[in-house]
């Protein structure tokens, strides 16, 4: 009997020929990423660490520091990387949301294991990496020991066929999955099929990022030509990709004809069993629109937003916040003129940070407001008041809706 993508990686990293569902394995972790919040909350300087070359520190959630507590965390982070010789330190100014920094610096490699505090670490599954969030204590432990455990979960395989229409993005594919099949708690997601050829790397990362939103463990894509080309653009390090065996065993195989999809919108609260095609969504006036986060602050997302807003204007009464996923994305968007286009259209472009996505230090929504977001989560209270409603859609749907002042099908506005 064969193994799935994730079983292959976890078997190899735990030094076994094969693993099966239910097994608990202890694996060598190839790369571990600490984030700023860790230093501001649970930090203690360790006596020793496993390997500074398998560690990165990224300032992302609360930058530039909005409070003394966060500023003190920065002080501790800088002292730590200095003391232990951690070269991969992405301090404010060369920072970004860790999942963007991981992608742009080749920290996630096909067939390897990546762990990080943040729950959206599954993003790197786009690069055929077994990547997941572990929480602050466990990531600290991996930093010290270089190892952690995983229990092999059953896998849902998504077999993609057909060609993705231009207006449909990774966000729409993901919302279709969440709306159709619901939660995948204690399961992995694996993607494959000929249809992947029409799904670019940025869309794959959106999908992999949001695996956490259906409660999945790992979400992985194959290291096909597109993926391999992307990774090689960002690193010279050798890797060994993990392909699933033809006779791998899946909990379910689910088919999606990409050519049949349209833009999707998730209603407030959760995405699972709560997302519908935009043609079925109620017309809601929006107060705030957001394009950003690890899921949708990529350069391609800013390009989509800028193209949608060129020679148009954000509707009166609407705030459109755009947050590049990293300082590199910010600079590239500046050079390409996207930031000027967005600002001319009435959008606010912020510095790179997790920011409005997690309702901590900027771009919060008040009671009674409606927000349409292209970010990661639509939980009650996620972006501010628990009495605000957070809908979720793709960057183009969010941009078009910001222009219309209500949730719309982007195909109606952008003609």
């Amino acid at each position, binding site marked *: 009997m064969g193994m799935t993508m994730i079983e292959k990686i976890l078997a190899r990293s735990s030094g076994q020929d094969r693993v099966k569902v239910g097994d*608990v394995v*202890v694996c060598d972790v190839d790369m571990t990423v600490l984030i700023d*919040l860790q230093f501001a*909350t*649970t*930090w*203690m*300087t*360790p*006596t*020793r660490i496993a390997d500074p070359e398998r560690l990165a520190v990224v300032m992302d959630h609360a930058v530039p520091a909005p*409070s003394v*507590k966060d500023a003190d965390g920065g002080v501790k982070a800088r002292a730590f990387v200095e003391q232990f010789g951690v070269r991969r330190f992405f301090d404010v100014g060369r920072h970004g949301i860790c999942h963007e920094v991981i992608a742009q610096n080749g920290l996630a490699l096909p067939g390897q294991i990546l762990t990080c*505090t*943040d*729950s959206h670490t599954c993003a790197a599954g786009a690069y055929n990496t077994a990547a*997941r*969030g*572990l*929480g*602050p*204590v*466990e990531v*600290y*432990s991996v930093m*010290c*020991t270089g190892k952690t*455990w995983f*229990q092999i*979960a059953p896998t849902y395989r998504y077999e993609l066929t057909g060609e993705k229409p231009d207006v449909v993005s990774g966000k729409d594919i993901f919302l279709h999955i969440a709306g159709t099949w619901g*939660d995948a*708690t*204690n399961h992995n997601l694996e993607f494959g099929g000929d249809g992947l050829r029409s799904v670019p790397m940025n869309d794959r990362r959106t999908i992999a990022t949001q695996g*956490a*939103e259906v*409660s999945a*463990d790992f979400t992985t894509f194959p290291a096909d030509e597109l993926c391999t080309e992307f990774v090689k653009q960002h690193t010279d390090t050798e890797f060994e990709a993990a392909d699933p065996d033809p006779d791998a065993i899946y909990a379910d195989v689910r088919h999606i004809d990409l050519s049949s999809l349209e833009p999707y919108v998730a209603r407030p609260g*959760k995405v*699972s069993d709560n997302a519908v095609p935009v043609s079925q969504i109620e017309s809601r006036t929006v107060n705030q629109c957001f394009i950003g986060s690890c899921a949708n602050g990529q350069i391609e997302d800013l390009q989509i937003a800028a193209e949608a807003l060129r020679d148009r204007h954000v509707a009166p009464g609407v705030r459109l916040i755009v947050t590049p996923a990293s300082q590199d994305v910010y600079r590239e968007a500046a050079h390409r003129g996207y930031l000027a286009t967005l600002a001319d259209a009435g959008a606010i472009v912020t510095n790179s940070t997790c920011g409005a996505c*997690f*309702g*901590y230090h900027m771009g919060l929504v008040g009671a009674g407001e409606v927000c349409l977001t292209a970010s990661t*989560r639509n*939980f*009650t*209270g*996620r*972006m*501010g008041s*628990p009495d605000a409603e957070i809908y979720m859609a793709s960057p183009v749907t969010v941009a078009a809706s910001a222009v219309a002042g209500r949730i719309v099908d982007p195909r109606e506005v952008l003609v």
Partner: protein
Amino acid sequence: MQDIIEGKAWVFGDSVDTDNMYPGFAMKLSPEEAAKHVFYDLRPGWTDQVQPGDIVVAGRNFGIGSSRPVARLFQHLGVAALVAEEFNSLFLRNCVNFGLPVATIPGVTRLVGDEDEVRLNVHDAIIELPRTGGALAGAPLPEYVYDILAQGGLFAKLAADGYIPAGVRA
């Protein structure tokens, strides 16, 4: 860690997410202060009712969401254990790693009602309701994972192995 825990149950529904338990605004506060906002929107005032030794019971997909250390807030409130029909895996890991006992017991929200006195065997994942004589068995943690819990979580293990200077705790 105590393997048999007796306490009063507080029962919650399905898909209770991390932002319900550790909202963004509370992340600015000390853990002691943040703990006063657990379930702030779902059940306002609950943190005044919960007593040390109580047990939180929830439905499916408990703890979906972020890596923020909710377990530490429950510990500040004195919550002795979490039992759910099903846990999000990141949330479960966070609890185990902080040394907060957890048990997955399908059907538990149908057996147990709010403020019922229950008896939980953490190792065997068995919950009993002395009032009715009812009991349910779930899926025990893998031994490897149970051992982390039994040691008091990962910080305790790291301290024992000399990775953290003696006497220092986050």
